[in-house]
């Protein structure tokens, strides 16, 4: 009889104990995950604003000019370097015509 009463009381307490379950926070990134699922962020959102005149044609032309300018400078620089090297080589081994004509000789 006493056991029966004990079990009944225990069960009653157990049923009432559900009221003590505490609420919990949502898992981390829950909000972002759901938002990403619902409305994916537009791709353009992270890109900086660019003026309307900066069209693809304009950008390609600018790129080509830049490439040609660089190639031109590179060609000129290489040629100039070659001449310099040749001159210094000639001067080192006494082959330079400017040295032959020196009044000190």
């Amino acid at each position, binding site marked *: 009889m006493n056991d029966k009463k004990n079990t009944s009381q225990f069960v009653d307490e157990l049923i009432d104990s559900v009221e003590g379950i505490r*609420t919990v926070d*949502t898992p981390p990134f829950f909000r972002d995950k759901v938002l990403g699922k619902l409305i994916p962020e537009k791709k353009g959102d992270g890109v900086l604003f660019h003026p309307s005149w900066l069209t693809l044609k304009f950008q390609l032309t600018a790129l080509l000019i830049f490439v040609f300018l660089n190639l031109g400078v590179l060609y000129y620089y290489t040629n100039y370097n070659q001449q310099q090297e040749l001159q210094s080589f000639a001067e080192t081994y006494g082959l330079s015509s400017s040295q032959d004509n020196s009044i000190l000789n």
Partner: protein
Amino acid sequence: MDERQFLADLKAQKRDAYAKLLDIYGKMVFNTCLSFVPNAQDAEDIAQEVFVKVYTSILEFRGNSKLSTWIYRIAVNKSLEFIRKKNAKKRFGFVQSLTGNAIPMDKSSYFTEFDHPGIQLERKEQREILFYAINQLPEGQKVVFTLHKIDGLSYKEVSEITKKSISSVESLLFRARKNLKQILTEYYKKEGW
């Protein structure tokens, strides 16, 4: 907060409005799902489905009830849907129960792995048994008991969510408690109490 404007923004599917909706109702929905399905991962998946449902059905919301009531209703339905699906799978897998050898409250027959982050470790086992018992209740009793006892909603709120009168909510709650007591007493008797 201008409720009407907020609703209009939700219907226009504005990102900011949904961010706000998640800030206001995210925790509530997650905890309700957790009350029905005591597994953090499962509850998170269901809560996500709830917001997807809100997003896809917001145009059907006429404003006859409060927005929170409508969202609660979706959360309850999604949770029950999940339990039904999982229970069906378990039933299919356990031929043992057909022969009558199955224990009525067996962990392996429960629809999910018990992992409720709001329950303290020292009382976990008792609460686990209680949740198994709640799962044995008929759906109507389960919903009313969970919303009132675990989620702490008033009779009025429960009646609005379930679309039942307050007296029938009270009656369902009374029967739920009686059945739970019977299930749990039988369980503890078998355990040798």
